[in-house]
């Protein structure tokens, strides 16, 4: 006999982490496609991330640290560069630079895949986001991701 154990799926995990970040908004959307198909796009930071994250043009994974954490260099659409610490696992991506935060999560649901996104411009040195525009940016990122998964132009 064993005691029941509760699991935390990546989307619930994202909601929990975002709740601790003032200014953060969690956009959510169900994409009618299997988890593997969705994460093949969402989790491909170098080839796909820039196609759906509004401010991200190019992202290059630099090195993996001994603790498994990745380091990435990113360039925004406006030419700014950033160095990100990245935690990337199936269904989960959390990225932090000095000025930006991006979180992405996905979990299988009966209708397909539930995806969630949060992020924006960071209040320097704090776990807080400048709240302007985060809602529209999050919804737009997931709409682009859904279109990308469906193979439509974004």
């Amino acid at each position, binding site marked *: *006999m064993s*005691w029941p154990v509760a699991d935390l799926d990546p989307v619930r995990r994202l909601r929990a982490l975002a*709740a601790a970040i003032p200014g953060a908004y969690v956009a959510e959307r169900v994409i009618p496609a299997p988890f593997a198909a969705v994460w093949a796009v969402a989790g491909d930071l170098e080839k796909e991330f820039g196609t759906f994250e509004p401010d991200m043009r190019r992202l290059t994974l630099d090195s993996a640290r001994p603790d498994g954490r990745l380091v990435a260099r990113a360039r925004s659409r406006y030419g700014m560069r950033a160095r990100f610490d990245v935690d990337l696992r199936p269904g989960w991506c959390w990225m932090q630079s000095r000025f930006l935060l991006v979180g992405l999560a996905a979990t299988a649901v009966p209708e397909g895949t539930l995806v969630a996104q949060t992020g924006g411009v960071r209040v320097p*040195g704090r776990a807080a986001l400048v709240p302007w525009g985060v809602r529209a940016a999050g919804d737009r990122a997931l709409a682009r991701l859904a279109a990308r998964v469906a193979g439509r132009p974004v």
Partner: protein
Amino acid sequence: MTPGLVLAAQRGDTMAMNDLLTELTPYLGRICGPIALDSGPDAVQEALIAIFRHLPDLREPEALHGWARAIAVREAVRIARRDGRSSPAELDGLPSPQDVERAVDIRDVLERLPPEHRAVLVLRDLEGLPEEAAARLLRVPSGTVKSRLHRARASFRRAWQG
């Protein structure tokens, strides 16, 4: 867990918060699962939200697990009550010997107990907390913990022996 991780999370490093989440989640899953049952994932989520919102108030990083456990137990009871999947806390409604004999695992027995009784079982039998500490955490008199535990254990014992 290193106290440094808690301190970094308190200072606003979201990578540290992410790592702390990774570390706490399995533990909270073991606390919330037996209390909230089907609502366990929601209970873990709500517990983590409460934990991270109040993390700046935690003065002793070494006390993290005990502090998180208290929050998780209360959130699990609240969510289980909210979702109303449990029977009212009527002690007369504890499982009959026939019901218990049909039980194939702990879950079958837990489902027949109200969330407050499940919380007592988790704190005393899983976490090994003394009666007084469990009563303080649940904000009930020590005698209440004792009687809940007695009845909950009796139904468990029958299940194990059945």
